[in-house]
């Protein structure tokens, strides 16, 4: 009996608590709907500042090289801020670590969007990582500019209206490399060394347009598995005397070491992603435990380029970036990855200028769609931005690595996805503005 009365007392307490709770609450929804989307226009931007965010692998296996990109971007934004910012707004650039793990990307992007309240996302790195947040950013209406990956996923304006690519996608790079090989090595037996995801698939798709008859073997590796002996041996057995690799830098080093071991010496061609001599050199030294000390193995390797590198100190863009890095950079030297980050930052400044004196999230996206194709910068070929296209840089030049430097083998070649022809770029090389800051008119 006593217990029962206790129970009823308890029930009464719960009921009372529920009552109190509902009394605190609204009890019912007011008639008009929620204003959710429209109200978010002013997030992350004030009269004196604009906050943008990014996710990069700053720790973990993907950190070497890639973790330098945001330091470059930060240096350029500091440079612009020191000159007064864009339309009086200082750019507040926040980058966070996702360790190249999509689960963490989702967490840090939540943090950037909800906690840091960024105006836009700039140059989030990686295909698997960024695809984890693609839906989220687009459903929240956050501009998702210039993703650091060449996947075709970022060029789907109907499905992902907020997302824009930046670098040449792997398909057009594959096409240009394929045509170059077909013209210059018509007798070669071509092998493909591919990362087993969109990267390798898109590259293969492009290369096969010109090389289908010449290809004697296509071998795929899964990222994370560091044993590439079967793939390299298979290419050797197939008699391939020219191998095109669509792979990341660590696999450039692994494939070089493995073919050295097998005494296999084909003409190597690596995509731009996998060919940074500085990074590959240090990886070679690490993987071979000091047996190979520099990027000398890469001598004679053919690759592609779409940005000036640190190996061309006479290039006016490199000189400008060097100045920016000297004035605002942190520790370390200017590297190709830092130039990559600065170039993206340079593009973003143009986008912000094109969006006018009072940008909103919507007007920023529209400005890139309207004016993006005319943006000029260190990149060798124009962007393919329009209302129906969100694809990045439209071309590359084919180069050869000799003595740690690169020499051009072709003029800049531009093309588009699918069966678009490859043509020589009509645009002349650009030079940076004297003060290092672009001046783009407001997109009309």
């Amino acid at each position, binding site marked *: 009996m006593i*217990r029962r009365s*206790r*129970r009823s007392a*308890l029930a009464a307490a*719960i009921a009372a*608590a529920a009552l109190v*709770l*509902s009394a*605190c*609450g*609204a*009890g*019912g*929804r007011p008639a008009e709907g*929620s204003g*959710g989307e429209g109200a978010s226009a002013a997030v992350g931007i004030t009269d004196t500042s604009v906050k943008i965010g990014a996710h990069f692998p*700053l*720790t973990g296996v993907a950190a070497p090289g890639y*973790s330098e990109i*945001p*330091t470059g971007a*930060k240096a350029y934004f500091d440079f612009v801020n020191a000159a007064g910012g864009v339309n009086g707004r200082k750019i507040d650039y*926040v*980058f*966070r*670590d996702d360790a*190249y*793990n*999509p*689960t963490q990307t*989702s*967490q*840090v992007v*939540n*943090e950037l969007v*909800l*906690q840091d309240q960024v105006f836009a996302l700039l140059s989030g790195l990686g*295909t*698997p*990582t960024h*695809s*984890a*947040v693609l*839906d*989220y950013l687009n*459903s929240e209406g956050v501009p998702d500019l210039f993703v650091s990956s060449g996947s075709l996923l970022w060029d789907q304006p109907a499905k992902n209206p907020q997302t824009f690519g930046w670098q040449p996608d792997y398909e057009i790079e594959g096409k240009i490399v394929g045509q170059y090989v077909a013209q210059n090595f018509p007798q070669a037996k071509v092998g493909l060394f591919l*990362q*087993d*995801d*969109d990267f390798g698939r898109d590259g293969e798709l492009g290369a096969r347009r010109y090389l289908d008859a010449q290809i004697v073997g296509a071998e795929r590796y*899964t*990222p*994370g*598995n560091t044993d590439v002996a079967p793939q390299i041996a298979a290419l050797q057995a197939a008699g391939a005397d020219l191998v095109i690799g669509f792979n990341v830098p660590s696999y450039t080093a692994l494939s070089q070491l493995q073919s050295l071991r097998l005494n296999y010496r084909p003409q190597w061609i690596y995509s731009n992603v996998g060919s940074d001599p500085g990074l590959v050199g240090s990886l070679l030294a690490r993987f071979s435990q000091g047996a190979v000390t520099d990027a000398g193995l890469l001598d004679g390797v053919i690759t592609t380029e779409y940005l000036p590198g640190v190996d061309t100190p006479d290039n006016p863009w490199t000189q400008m970036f060097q100045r920016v890095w000297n004035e605002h950079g*942190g520790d370390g030297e200017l590297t190709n990855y830092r130039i990559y980050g600065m170039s993206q930052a340079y593009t973003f400044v143009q986008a912000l200028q094109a969006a006018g004196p009072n940008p909103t999230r919507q007007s920023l996206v529209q400005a890139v769609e309207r004016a993006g194709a005319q943006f000029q910068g260190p990149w060798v070929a124009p962007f393919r931005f329009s209302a129906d296209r969100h694809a990045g840089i439209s071309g590359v030049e084919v180069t050869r690595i000799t003595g740690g430097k690169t020499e051009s083998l072709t003029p800049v070649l531009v093309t588009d996805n699918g069966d678009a022809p490859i043509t020589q770029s009509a645009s002349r090389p650009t030079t940076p503005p004297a003060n290092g800051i672009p001046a783009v008119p407001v997109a009309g």
Partner: protein
Amino acid sequence: MAQQIDRTGTPAAERAPAAAAPSAAAPGPGRRFAALRRRMPRSTFGRHALITLAALVAVVLVLELTSPFRNSQFATMSYYAIAAAGLTVLTGLNGQISLGHGALMAVGAYTTGLLLTGDGGLPLPVVMLVAAAVTALVGAVVGAAAARLHGPYLAGATLALAVAVPGLAIYFDTALGGEQGLPVASPHVPSWFADAVYFLSANETPTAKYLAYVGWGTLLLVLLLLANLMAARTGRVWRAVRDDEVAAELAGIRLGRVRVLAFVVSAACAGLAGAVLGIVVRLAAPSGFTIVLSLGLLTAVVVGGLGSLVGALLGSALLVFLPPAVTNIGIGAGLDGTQAAQLAPFVYGVVLVLVMLLAPSGAVGVTKKLWNRSRKNRRGPSTRRTG
């Protein structure tokens, strides 16, 4: 014996709401606490259910009062905690170590991704149950092998699982999305749910908050069931097997069966955790389920206090809240972004080493020790407990 078991099961669950919201049941001086305990329902399930209900109220309050970003962090914490709760039962109660729980979560997440197809597919609770069932099945197979192994060999076998399962996703890339992962359709907030929340708090329910509710609802349910299991015969049998195999066998316990059952229960929790992870992250990708995840779970369990559900909660809170907090402190102290990001794993490692050195029984173990000491001072010797 009965007294001891009762106590082993209860305090863990009793402090659960205290962890979620300090106001819910702050342990006062011993006598008042004992009085409070007398007022609790006599049946174990009733007591646990009551505590769960109180915790639910606390969860609603916390989720309604915190920012959307905190909501999303709580959602993240919920799936870590579900998996850690399952693991702490396996390791703490049954004495089996598993380095493969990340892989089991992957099974749950991929099942969810395959079954949850935006509109018109199976409803979310059914999908989550199926994910748990499929993972339990995988757990039964692994458990059958694991039941024959001990110590480092068991760690090795489950480690192989952690390495192999993400590889499967890459191998069957047409069905499972390969390296890029399988997108998981994020569930829409049901309108009845949004209306109910609005009725109580006048707040809208964005997806982040809804996911946090789903995660914490699942977590509380899992904790309730596990707390009961721990306090019941099954829990006693598991402890018996952990403490002395020979004695347990002499008492008529079939070691193999018990071990497999423990693994299956633990795997089902991991599967549920994977399902929640899938809908929170919106993606199931191999790089999200590396050995780091399995080790992280084990760390959470050990730092929190092995064999304690509250410990699992505390440990997963540490996993989720510590790294961003450290990074922000680093940035506040003037480090650049890269250095601040590198600070987080460092501090995490230091915390782990310190816990191992100074408090090997974890946060809950230390609290219990202090609690017992203060009681001993007041009323003389108390019984020593393990687990």
